[in-house]
């Protein structure tokens, strides 16, 4: 089943064209990695898909589960099961983790025509998912990401993903800035959530995460286009040879 189809996607930020014709097909059940050097447009692609203000699509189409993704608001995309794990998760003083989780889950369930979870069931669900990311219980009562370390923030993103159970998860550099233990926790979370109905796109600069999460497809982004696509072995080639040869090929 087709999860996501991107055709000839062009997008600009502040009038500068960053994405210059992206084509990508992702099926349900697949994990794709999007790699590439800094400035190649990886994060821009993630935010265009999530619907960030100021990211202007100038050409192309994005079809998500048969719908025109670009016609939906940011929150509608989230309710339709799209999840963006942030490279830099945002601090929200005064809003507790547990509150955000509940507001988010309720909004998603309401959209699906499901009833809100009662307080007990909700707490049981959250505590179960917290085990997955090895997060102590007190974290859910703290303000969202306030005073969290880099690793704690990334684990918090995975916790949110685990509670919301998205159909398509975009993880933007979720591996960056993590020590090896935190990386393993994040990777484990991703692996547990892999499933036949769910697709994942891992945006990453390094091959490191892919040692723990084995992708079905690897794409290399260079200068706003997908310059090369391959299987998991492509990530190993990049680890050995760097990005230079792909950028050189792309220029030919």
């Amino acid at each position, binding site marked *: 089943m087709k999860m996501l189809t991107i055709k000839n996607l062009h997008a600009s930020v502040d009038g500068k064209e960053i994405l210059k014709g992206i084509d990508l097909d992702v099926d349900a059940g697949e994990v794709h990695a999007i790699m590439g050097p800094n400035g190649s447009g990886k994060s821009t692609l993630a935010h265009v898909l*999530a*619907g*960030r*203000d100021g990211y202007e699509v100038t050409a192309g189409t994005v079809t998500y589960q048969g719908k025109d993704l670009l016609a939906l*608001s*940011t*929150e509608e*995309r*989230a*309710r339709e099961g799209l*999840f*963006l794990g*942030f490279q830099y*998760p*945002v*601090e*929200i*003083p*005064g*809003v507790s983790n547990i509150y*955000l989780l509940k*507001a*988010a889950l309720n*909004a*998603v369930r309401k*959209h699906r025509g499901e009833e809100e979870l009662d307080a007990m069931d909700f707490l049981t669900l959250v505590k179960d998912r917290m085990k997955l990311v090895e997060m102590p219980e007190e974290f859910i009562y703290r303000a969202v990401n306030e005073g969290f370390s880099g690793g704690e923030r990334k684990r918090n993103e995975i916790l*949110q993903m685990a509670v*919301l159970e998205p159909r398509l998860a975009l993880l933007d550099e979720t591996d960056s800035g993590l020590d090896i233990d935190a990386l393993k926790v994040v990777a484990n979370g991703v692996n547990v959530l892999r499933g036949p109905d769910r697709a994942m796109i891992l945006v990453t600069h390094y091959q490191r995460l892919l040692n723990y999460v084995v992708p079905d497809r690897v794409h290399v982004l260079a200068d706003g286009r997908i310059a090369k696509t391959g299987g998991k072995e492509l990530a190993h080639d990049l680890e050995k040879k760097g990005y230079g040869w792909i950028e050189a090929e792309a220029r030919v």
Partner: protein
Amino acid sequence: MGVPIDVKQTYLAAAAAVADSVPGTTHSWLRQLRERSRDRFAETGFPTTRDEAWRYTSLAALTRHAFAPAAADAGSVSKDNLQSVGLDLPAHRLVFVGGRYHAALSNPPKTDGAVFAGSLAESLAHAPDQLQEYLGAIGTPEMGALAALNTAFMVDGAYIHLGPKAVVERPIHLIYVGAPNAMTTPRTLIVAGEESVASIVEHFVGFDAQSYFCNALTEIALARAAKLTYYRVQEESAHGFHIGGVHVRQARGSEFVSNAIDLGGLLVRNDLRTVLGEGASCALNGLYAVSGRQHVDNHTVIEHAAANSTSRELYKGVLDGRARAVFNGRVRVHPDAQKSDAQQTNNNLLLSDDAEIDTKPELEIYADDVKCSHGATVGQLDPNQLYYLRTRAVDEATARDLLTFAFANDVLRRFDLAPLRVDLDRRLMDRLLQGRVIREVELV
């Protein structure tokens, strides 16, 4: 067009007319105090924007016509309609209607040797000597025209006396109900003995669409090591004028916490002033959440009058519609007040392009070994936070309300009195949600 009415003269004539019927006329000290007040008001009249302390707050709307002092039978209030505007706290309760104590709606604490809370007018009749030392001595007529006006007209209010080491377990909740088309002049006197502990809530309410003028004055004397948590909840009607003075004198080692919230009123001015003795501390927390055409001005003064005193101040504002707010925080460290420690913060959130805030710290430091800091911010909701919430399926309007509430709740969470905090949380939430729908409240 009629002949312009001289509002000052109207108030002075009214003050002279009630001079023989107000409480305490048999006490010469009080007669003199009232005379001083009338003289003071005659001299100055209402302040104008030419006065530095009133630069950003014009009383033109208040002084367009004179409000007559509320009659003794002003406004009938039942338990039910009190409930519609009042907080339902597990507390001792003193209710004032038309500026006068309403025994049927009240349940004051049992009077024993250690604690008294009751009508100021009755205390003036029965125990005037207790009051002479304090009444008009902390919040003097010379502190301003409105303080003078209150003193000239005051007919009643609350008198709370705590003996040494008295501990009042239940909070004392004072409710002042505005009188339609009239002026009330509530007067509160709190005298807290050495090492006493209490929580007192002053709560100003009015009914929807009623215009009136509430000119309140509160005096607080804390003896050595007394601890008072003082709450001030201002929920006047959308057409109400509220002027509130709170004057505090803190003896050695006393601790004063003020938690103030302004939600109501059309034109509101609060003056909060405390004088810190040696080793005394104060924490002044304030929140103003205004919309429509509301105008709320908070002036605070902290006098570090002796050594080793500490002050913490956090005022936050949420402004929507065409609302306007003023924050002016003066901190004065006297020459002998070495090792004073003062921190002041004022943060403002503007939700509309038409809202306006004027914020001004005033630090006057005359000692050399002190720690003083201040900071003020004015801003909008953070687009990154909004985006993050929206990627978590929260719609934009809710995300805005949520972030606004979180900003304001930073003050409310400091309110130790849980039932009050929970109630205010709910009121604030209601208000923020209404803020978008009812953006405009027409001027009277």
